[in-house]
């Protein structure tokens, strides 16, 4: 299936781009992140992140669907 991944902050810098469309066979957001971390060497492990799918926070074991917009959320620091 195809998913659209957007990167923010430290992930954007580590990936060198703000988003990409990916063909994946990973069933969950966690699997997808760990695969991408293996490829791109993201410094943060998944347990430091949250995940947003189609603009809603979801648990890491949320099943991915074709066309999903996936955003991994590094530790926030607003305010």
């Amino acid at each position: 299936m195809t998913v659209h991944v957007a990167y923010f902050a430290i992930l954007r810098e580590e990936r060198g781009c703000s988003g990409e469309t990916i063909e994946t066979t990973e069933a969950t957001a966690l699997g997808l992140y760990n695969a991408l971390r293996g490829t791109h060497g993201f410094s943060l492990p998944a347990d430091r992140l949250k995940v947003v799918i189609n603009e809603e926070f979801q648990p890491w074991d949320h099943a991915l669907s074709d066309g999903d917009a996936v955003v991994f959320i590094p530790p926030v620091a607003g305010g």
Partner: protein
Amino acid sequence: MFSISAVPIDPSIHHAALREPAAGACVTFEGWVRNRNEGRAVVSLEYEGYDAVAVKEGERILAEARERFAIAGAVCIHRTGHLRLGDMAVWVGVSAGHRGAAFDACRYIIDETKLRLPIWKKEHYEDGDSEWINCQAVPTAIARPVTLPG
């Protein structure tokens, strides 16, 4: 009303929205860029936001504040982009019949905003270094294993 602003925040505009004949108290919070953070001399910083989700989550926080506290109005504006020392990073304003609710709700909104909004801060230091706050990789020895949350 929650919003993200890529340009300097002008509280006067939003302040007017808090006025209500039954409101006797107004509490505001402003977050300013400090010249030090955890002992390091800061020269400037960048806020980056996932705007669509930050606005949704921000509106949720304001709705929670309205449910929990007897308030009349509540506004929160978060800045993004490159900020210099003294610049306003966030503005929260709450009006209420009485001051207790206004203080409590304002505090709730800024606390939750800092905890929950997908907004990130990169500090630039006097020594030329920079860092995404809270995003340092933890040494492997003390990192928790990656598992599915139970």
